[in-house]
């Protein structure tokens, strides 16, 4: 049997070509992306992994990280390769960015990966390095960010949390949600995730941590350093079975 198909039909009909091109392209997305939303193991559900959403201060720090475009030069994705393990630490888990909207994996490393930068350097170093990177790392090509010492705009923190809640981050509005968080994350963390107390929590954490080394007011530096210092620290890998992580892929 001879199929009387002629590619001229497509080539001479721009409307048909457009539709078929879109269909062909979408197959890639449908096959590679869509199933991840349904496959159970996409976000590792392994004992010992208990990643929490960011506190209000860390959340504002993350927003500043995005505002300043840090992601254009820094990735937050340690791939499972020997060299990356040796330099940056344990490979990143999907679970670790489950509350990131949008995730900060990035696609380019002009600077080093930051997925596990939390705790690696002191607050003091981060502050100096952000204000004047070359004062700490002479060969650095990172821009100076001296304006980060300005006061942090805290006015919209509740709205920012509500927006993330709308896409599934468990910040709590109601008492029932708060209690669910107590069960899931413990009382201390749950208190931090309560939207009604956001501003108070933000100021308290900044004052307690004094991340920017300046006691006067809450600066954008406080927020950004608080965020950087929590990156990659939420999972204690001594309590996670490495073989289970392998099995979940």
């Amino acid at each position, binding site marked *: 049997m001879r199929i009387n198909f002629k590619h*001229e039909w497509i080539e001479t009909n721009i409307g048909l070509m457009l539709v078929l091109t879109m269909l062909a392209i979408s197959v890639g997305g449908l*096959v590679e992306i869509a*199933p991840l939303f*349904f*496959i*159970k*193991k996409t976000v590792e559900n392994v004992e010992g992994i208990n990643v929490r959403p960011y506190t209000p201060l860390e959340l504002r720090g993350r927003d500043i990280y995005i505002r300043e475009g840090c992601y254009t030069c820094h990735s937050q994705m340690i*791939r*499972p*390769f*020997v060299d990356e*393990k*040796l*330099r940056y*630490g344990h*490979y990143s888990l999907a679970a670790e960015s489950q509350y990131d909207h949008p995730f900060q994996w990035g696609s380019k490393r002009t600077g080093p990966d930051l997925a596990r930068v939390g*705790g*690696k*350097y*002191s*607050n*003091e*170093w981060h502050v*100096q*390095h952000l204000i004047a990177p070359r*004062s*700490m*790392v*002479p060969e650095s090509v990172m821009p100076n960010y001296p304006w980060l010492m300005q006061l942090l705009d805290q006015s919209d923190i509740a709205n920012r949390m509500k927006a993330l809640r709308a896409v599934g981050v468990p910040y709590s509005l109601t008492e029932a949600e708060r209690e669910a968080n107590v069960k899931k994350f413990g009382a201390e963390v749950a208190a931090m995730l309560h939207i009604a107390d956001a501003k108070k929590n933000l100021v308290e954490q900044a004052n307690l941590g004094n991340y920017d*080394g300046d006691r006067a007011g809450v600066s954008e530096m406080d927020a950004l350093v608080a965020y950087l210092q929590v990156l990659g620290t939420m999972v204690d890998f*001594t309590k996670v079975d*490495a*073989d289970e*992580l*392998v*099995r979940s*892929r």
Partner: protein
Amino acid sequence: MSEQNLQSQTVQTTGHAWDGDLQEFNNPLPTWWVYTFYVTIVFSIVYWLIYPSWPIGKSFLTGFSDITYVNKAGETVTSHWNTRALLMADLNKAEEMQKPYFSKVAANDFEQIAKDPELSGFVLSAGKALFTENCAPCHQQGGQGVIGFFPNLTDDDWLYGGSYDKIHETLVNGRRGYMPAFGEVLNAGEIDALANYVASLSGIAHDAGKAASGRVLFTSETAACYYCHTDSAKGRQDMGAPNLTDKIWLWADVPGAEKAEDKIAAIRSTIITGVNKGVMPAWGERLSPEQIKVLTVYVHELGGGK
């Protein structure tokens, strides 16, 4: 002329002429191309069978290929092929290659490592890589530090002690420097007197009268500097209180000031604001015990080890 040429062509054209004589061939695809295309389709099917591929419901085909590695507990684990299992197997290989050195590092004490030419060579190269990634951002590539922020590791002046054991302790647990802000406790005259006394200890031109009253204050209960810096101002390494008599400065930028009065001003401002920033992170959980041992010897051999 061109008309004739076109008619003599035996190849099929698209049948459309542009600008009167421009035509487009409509050749079939080359045979080699078509068959390569079929081969890629067959290849992809083989690939699906070997590696994780198609999603099925809430799971996916894991493929027939597998990877065997040895886990931390020493058990042999076999998993379907995935990049994480591949990493575990690759780490096994890397550990195998490093083992001859790291097991020797683990088995020997610090002095033995430093004395053994082969091991100290390893420490120099492996330590340099570790130091560059983890320590150099603060202490700088050569270990020279940054005045006002991070101590110099190449001199023989140590805040917390420069023996192997003390350096090791510093690396594992980290440190936190602290000096109270005396601006809240003492008046300007008293602080000036203390600054002159401290300047006198390292031979900076000073006001002898002020220094004399500063000496009294230093060991008095009012300022109580001697609690940490001791009577002789030689410091206490168990508290990280620096020796003030050795002309080596970290917090006050004395070397950076040209005139004696500016040097004293730098000392004064440190007394006023105190120090609450000498934080060294703890590396005990980030690096392996062998890596920390390598770094200990590396830092010790930077020049100032005791």
